[in-house]
């Protein structure tokens, strides 16, 4: 690494911080040449680069040279219009963000405010606010750039904020160097040591959110408590003054957050929803938790009264210790006899880890009724059956077979939103007979119930569509067959669109794929339902092979780490570091988990078996499918039908049938 400045990251860190950083970097086997210019790149015999010549006479062998040259403002428009530019490019504007032409303004990274371009998001937002105010007749001026940054250099946390270099007259430095934990920190204080002006953190940047929010205000704790990396307790957000900005992306202060907590927000998602704090870069999410703690809101991660641990911790316990039964788990790590919360969670974890058929042994007693009867319980006590139709593609013969089953068992029939056909009104004793007919016709029943992959929808794709650019149906079929039966913390939905017109609504899914001219774009974290959310773009222009590997990892990481009943959207939102963190884990393998995740998915795919057919072939499983233990041939007399629009529907005889389930309705925010 060749750096013209006398230390690494000269803008962000001071000399001592740079020295600490250099130690980290050199331990990784990277040699740093500091304070020296490159004078020439020399080619080898084959004409490609072979070495760099440095100004001090040394030479460095190199097969590849990467030049990091910062950012360059896109100022072509200003150039073409003849507007003045900054000394190093950028549209020159004054403190009002106005160019030399009073009708033209510039904001963001292309604007050179008083000659300086700031390649950071916060100053960009500030210029936009100035221009908005000016357009409305105000007199706002650019307040100076917030150049605070937190980043990783070769895996080392580095942060700087405020007056990091101590240029304020009379300022005081408090520094802390720990060669053991290899961390360096510096706080810059006002001359009376009462006001925090800025600072530098290298190695451990965990105090960054709190410190940054404290700039310009009183110190939230004694300097040593703030800097010592021991438990970070001193740097907790609970010590922040009310006016401190906790979320600088969305300008949310501690006072705003305290008001939201007082107003009834009892967890991080609620705080995010009512203040928007933590919804952009996510770096302040740990502070949101600390503020809840400071307000005395208890955020238990206990699954239920029987287990003090979260679903994720339970998953790790079961996986690492090789536990295969609920009774052993609750005896060793819990208490009591379980409940309708922890039993299905454990059943799901055991299934995710490939512990055999859902009805085998003790596992049968853990399953929710849908997983126990492998069908969807309806309000009248009957079940619905949804044959799997991968990708929504079906032959006329199979369509006829479904029609015949529905007709012969007198089932109410409806097309679903997931490109399948739902057959309603089956009694438990009819379920195996229905599956038998479906299996004989080449179907398996499907998971229209349960916390598992539901469907992979598709548009018709380039086989037929004039606009399609890829075979979306083929991919959807392959994905549905690959991930069918995969048990997860919540249901999983997917879709594949064959072009950017997005007819399959892939962005409304947990993982959605949209074809490009050259591959596939992967979107994650979408859902419909009570709180609809579009999925975010995760990776672009993937080959089919790379796409599938990335989805494998995404799903397995979700299964291992999400909370109970947490859809992928909420899981990503709750993740410290959000989508960037997820990308680091799944693409760059920052946690070293990828091989493990890949292997886990390979095991799932290899072990998949048609659960419904497996019931038909086992008398022990089959015996559960009777209405009455002492009258196996008597159908449940309470399941009766009326006819509505030519189809059977539950008879509404009893007055107390049809009690609606009350759900909180969305409210208009004022």
């Amino acid at each position: 690494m060749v750096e013209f400045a006398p230390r690494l990251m000269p803008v962000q860190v001071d000399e001592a911080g740079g020295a600490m950083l250099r130690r980290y970097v050199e331990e990784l086997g990277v040699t740093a040449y500091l304070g020296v210019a490159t004078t020439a790149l020399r080619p080898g015999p084959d004409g490609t680069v072979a070495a760099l010549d440095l100004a001090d006479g040394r030479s460095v062998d190199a097969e590849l040279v990467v030049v990091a040259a910062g950012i360059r403002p896109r100022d072509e428009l200003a150039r073409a219009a003849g507007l003045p530019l900054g000394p190093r490019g950028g549209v020159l504007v004054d403190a009002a963000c106005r160019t030399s032409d009073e009708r033209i303004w510039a904001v963001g990274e292309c604007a050179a405010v008083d000659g300086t371009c700031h390649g950071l998001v916060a100053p960009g937002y500030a210029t936009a606010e100035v221009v908005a105010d000016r357009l409305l007749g105000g007199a706002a001026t650019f307040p100076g750039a917030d150049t605070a940054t937190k980043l990783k250099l070769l895996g080392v946390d580095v942060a700087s904020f405020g007056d990091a270099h101590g240029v304020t007259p009379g300022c005081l430095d408090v520094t802390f160097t720990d060669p053991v934990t290899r961390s360096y920190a510096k706080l810059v204080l006002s001359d009376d040591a009462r006001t925090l002006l800025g600072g530098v953190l290298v190695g451990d940047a965990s105090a960054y959110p709190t410190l940054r929010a404290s700039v310009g205000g009183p110190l939230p704790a004694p300097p040593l408590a703030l800097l010592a990396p021991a438990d970070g307790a001193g740097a907790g957000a609970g010590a922040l003054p009310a006016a401190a900005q906790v979320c600088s992306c969305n300008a949310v202060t501690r006072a705003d957050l305290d008001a939201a907590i007082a107003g009834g927000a009892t967890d991080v998602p609620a705080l995010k929803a009512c203040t928007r704090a933590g919804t952009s870069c996510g770096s302040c999410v740990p502070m949101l938790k600390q503020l809840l703690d400071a307000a005395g809101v208890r955020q238990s991660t206990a699954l239920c009264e029987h287990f003090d641990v979260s679903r994720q911790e339970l998953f790790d316990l079961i996986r690492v210790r090789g536990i295969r039964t609920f009774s052993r788990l609750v005896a060793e790590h819990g208490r009591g006899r379980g409940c309708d919360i922890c039993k299905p969670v454990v059943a799901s974890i055991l299934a995710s880890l490939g512990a055999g058929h859902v009805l085998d042994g003790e596992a049968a007693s853990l399953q929710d009724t849908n997983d126990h009867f492998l069908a969807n319980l309806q309000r009248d006590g009957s079940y619905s059956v949804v044959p799997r139709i991968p990708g929504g593609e079906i032959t006329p013969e199979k369509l006829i077979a479904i029609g015949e089953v529905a007709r012969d068992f007198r089932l109410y029939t409806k097309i679903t939103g997931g490109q399948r056909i739902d057959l309603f009104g089956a009694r438990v004793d009819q379920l195996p007979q229905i599956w038998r007919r479906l299996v004989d016709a080449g179907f398996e029943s499907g998971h229209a119930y349960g916390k598992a992959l539901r469907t992979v929808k598709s548009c018709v794709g380039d086989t037929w569509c004039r606009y399609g650019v890829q075979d979306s149906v083929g991919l959807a079929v392959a994905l549905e067959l690959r991930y069918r039966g995969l048990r997860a913390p919540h249901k999983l939905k997917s879709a594949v669109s064959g072009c950017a017109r997005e007819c399959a609504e892939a962005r409304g899914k947990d993982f959605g794929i949209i074809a490009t001219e050259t591959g596939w774009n992967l979107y994650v974290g979408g859902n419909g339902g009570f709180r609809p959310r579009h999925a975010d773009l995760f990776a672009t222009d993937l080959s089919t092979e790379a796409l599938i590997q990335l989805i494998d990892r995404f799903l397995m990481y979700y299964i291992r780490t999400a909370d109970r009943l947490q859809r992928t959207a909420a899981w990503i939102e709750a993740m410290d570091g959000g989508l960037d963190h997820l990308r680091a884990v799944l693409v760059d393998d920052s946690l070293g988990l990828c091989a493990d995740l890949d292997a886990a998915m390979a095991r799932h795919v290899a072990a998949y078996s048609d659960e419904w057919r497996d019931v038909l072939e086992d008398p022990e499983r089959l015996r559960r499918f009777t209405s009455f233990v002492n009258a196996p041939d008597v159908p449940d007399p309470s399941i009766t039908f009326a006819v509505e629009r030519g189809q059977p529907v539950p008879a509404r005889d009893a007055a107390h049938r049809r009690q609606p389930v009350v759900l909180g309705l969305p409210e208009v925010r004022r």
Partner: protein
Amino acid sequence: MSPVVALDWTPVCPLDRLDLDRGVAALVGGVQVALFRTDGGLFAVDNLDPVGGAYVMSRGLVGSRGGVPTLASPLHKQVYDLTTGHCLDLPGVTLRRHRVRCRDGLVEVRLRQEE
């Protein structure tokens, strides 16, 4: 009012037909009964979900709450105390209980008409 007839014990099934913590439904004198075998013994309650109005209680999950054996409705998860029949989530709602015992490896039920 005629005097309440003392109903007879009705044999239902062998004990080993009941899985631990997993219910079954039985038809006893025309009444649908949900039967459970737990660590704490046998329980029999109405199969009718008093809230949802469907005959499904035998398909609910058995567990415990604060040391009390419980049954959760598979429809909307209201939890009932198996020893009293009282709903622990909705005051005033009760699941009718029946007598149940095991004789010579056979599970027997005697209906209870009123609490």
